[in-house]
């Protein structure tokens, strides 16, 4: 049974109990270099497999873009 989260500012339904790694796979995010923040704290790469998303979590997935 699915859970609601906020992903990059938008409401989304996700399968329950996903890890961050699974989420990225689920989203088909191939980009080698994204960074993930859950509830305003960074989830470092080494914890992508461990950190489970929970209902109501606020998730940010960011990448580098052009800037000065």
């Amino acid at each position, binding site marked *: 049974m699915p859970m609601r989260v906020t992903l990059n500012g938008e409401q989304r339904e996700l399968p329950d109990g996903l890890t961050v790694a699974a989420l990225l796979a689920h989203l088909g995010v191939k*980009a080698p270099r994204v960074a993930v923040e859950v509830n305003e704290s960074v989830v470092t790469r080494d914890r992508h497999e461990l950190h489970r998303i929970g209902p109501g979590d606020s998730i940010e997935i960011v990448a*580098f873009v*052009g*800037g000065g």
Partner: protein
Amino acid sequence: MADTWSIGTHLFTSRLLVGTGKFPSFEVMQRAHLASGAEIVTVAVRRLDLTASGAASLLQWIPKHMTLLPNTAACFTADEAIRTARLGRELGMGDLVKLEVIGDRRTLFPDVVGLVDAARVLVKEGFIVLPYTNDDPVTAQRLEDAGCAAVMPLGAPIGSGLGIRNPYNLRIIMEAAKVPVLVDAGVGTASDAAIAMELGAVAVLMNTAIAEARQPVLMAEAMRDGVAAGRKAFLAGRIPMKLHAAASSPMSGLIAT
């Protein structure tokens, strides 16, 4: 004479830092970066577009020898800037951050109160903080006291191309600073970059002046030369100014009249 400079443990020979925004294309950006001779390049941190499948990544266009300098552009509070810096570190696997805390949408001038607060936090977390600040000597001192690795006062508003509006303040900042002073923002053309270096800046950071020039690659070369020119002139020691003339040819030994 190898005229190098350093931030933390990073050693650099180029004194021009460039950005990655507003270029007509990634191809042009890459050629401009190579023409500029820059070793440090700024990047911004933004939400990944989840709709775009496998969008072209900015990073593959940045030469491997260049050091990434993530910025916190468009952050209006210390808190946003701190979170953005942390995400930038996670993305870039480096501790350098160009810290911006913006105080006003129209001028993009820094909120110096938030800037100093954010700097303190990030320094504690081991970041090498390069703050974008205004040309206020007192704020520059506060940032140095907060442990910033450099201070980066603006020459003029970001993207304005107005050049060095207040060389007096910049000189005062450079006289007092014990950390490198970089001029960030405001440069419009090559002579502006030269002037910044002649004032004693350690380096100059620019984006729009190159990216939005009619010919970005050629302008990048111009900026490379302008920074080099200004640096060498600063080291060479210019002649003093005089109101009147001083002949460069002898006034004697003239033929009879």
